[in-house]
């Protein structure tokens, strides 16, 4: 018969957090890639097809007056971060529902349920960055020092997405309608954010208001790698302030609702 081993050494909260975050992130990625043959290609194909459609419409059908050339690189620099944002916020609506069994039976820090989504989608985003590099080489887009803003852009986007996830995930448990509302808002936001156009293409006066959408400043940071003129300091500062504000609201909402969520899932 087996012997009862002595209790395992206790782990620090940080260790527990990291381990559970990584376990769930890795599982998300594994499930996504193990079940499909093309795996990685799919996560790149989606933004790529969209980029080609918009490129075709705006350069081959109508004369492009928005964005910068090469337009396909301009598009990808906005579309890839958008895929991360869209995927993470969209999946956050199911953060608790999808893994209800695990949520009910383990006591890992609850924010992990949201953060693993942002992390796994973020890893896919980083893995897709080489695609832009390939297109930049093909179409002769010149890499500038603006690429140094890339880490800042990633951090800001992570802050923003985590904040939104912390607000949306617990609310959806009580208001299922929110799941569909979020989808609709995301679709609106795609056109309301400077993805297929640049912030400077907006009519004068609208630019300031558009900057209150934190994605405007964040995408301008990404684009600075190839298009230094796209960098809009005012938009970036507003984006940073908005992202931190949203994260703060998210933490408050999440803390208030977590008790009720655990009863409901």
């Amino acid at each position, binding site marked *: 018969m087996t*012997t009862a081993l002595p*209790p395992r050494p206790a782990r620090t909260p940080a260790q527990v957090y990291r381990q559970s975050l990584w376990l769930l992130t890795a599982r998300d990625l594994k499930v996504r890639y193990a079940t499909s043959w093309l795996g990685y290609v799919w996560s790149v194909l989606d933004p790529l097809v969209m980029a080609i459609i918009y490129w075709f419409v705006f350069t081959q059908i109508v004369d492009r007056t928005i964005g910068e050339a090469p337009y396909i690189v301009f598009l990808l620099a906005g579309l890839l971060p958008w895929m991360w944002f869209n995927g993470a916020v969209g999946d956050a609506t199911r953060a608790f529902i999808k893994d209800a069994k695990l949520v009910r039976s383990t*006591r890992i820090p609850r924010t992990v349920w949201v953060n693993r989504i942002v992390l796994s989608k973020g890893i896919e985003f980083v893995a897709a960055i080489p695609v832009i590099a390939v297109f930049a080489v093909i179409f002769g887009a010149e890499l500038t020092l603006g690429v140094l803003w890339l880490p800042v852009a990633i951090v800001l986007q992570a802050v923003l997405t985590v904040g939104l996830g912390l607000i949306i995930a617990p609310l959806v448990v009580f208001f299922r309608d929110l799941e569909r509302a979020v989808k609709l808002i995301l679709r609106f936001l795609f056109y309301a954010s400077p993805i297929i156009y640049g912030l400077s293409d907006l009519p004068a006066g609208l630019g300031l208001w558009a900057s209150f959408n934190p994605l405007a400043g964040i995408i301008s940071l990404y684009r600075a790698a190839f298009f230094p003129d796209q960098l809009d300091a005012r938009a970036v500062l507003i984006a940073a302030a908005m992202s931190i504000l949203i994260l703060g609201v998210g933490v408050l909402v999440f803390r208030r609702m977590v008790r009720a969520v655990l009863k409901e899932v």
Partner: protein
Amino acid sequence: MAAPESAGRADVVIRVRGAGIRFRRNRRGRRSFKDLFAGRNRRSRPGEFWALRGVDVEVRAGEAIGVVGRNGQGKSTLLKLVAGVMLPDEGSVDVVGGVAPLIEITGGFVDDLTVRENVYLTAGLHGMAKHEIDARYDEIIDFAELRDFVGTPYKHLSSGMKVRLAFSVISRLEEPILLVDEVLAVGDKAFRDKCYARIDELLAGGRTLFFVSHNERDLKRFCTRGLYLDGGALVLDAPIRDVLAAYGRDHGGTAVAE
């Protein structure tokens, strides 16, 4: 409070103070967006009840506690509070050291993952490092008698296999506190005997046991102290014999099988 002699001056590992938790009476009645904007009074909560209220318990290391009560009187809720998978609305629940909770018949396993993946995921989420799981993996599988099914998706297992796997993983977490809800009633007799031997072993190793059961024989076998819950309140905290006697008196002794 009558702590058994054997516990002596051992440290308090579970401290429940004035704990209360309330639920909505109608779980299915989800609120929709309309309610959110319908103003404060519509959102007041007439349909809520306290599943547990004003519960005070202190448990010392090495105690074996049986929780008794009719269905719906708060037994499982108390276990969930101790397991930390639910948080009290009032009062506090403090647990020193880790908890190995066997409170859901499914053990929280994921349908689409294989047995092997589930073992690593669940044990990992309960705080086990990968090398610790590696060291125990074979034993977990052998104990659950699932050697031929490690690559099978969890959803294809029979309900008996699921319980075996859950008990096998949770009882191998090596945590100082073990919580067992009435899940063992499902397994066949041979496996139940094996589980009981494992629980005996863990108790001999100084573990603390929180045990919910309707089976008087099991309660007497493992537990020294009993908690009797009724209507969400702790009505009696005494040696298990006294608790079972009181429970039998209140409910005609028919609910428990001797």
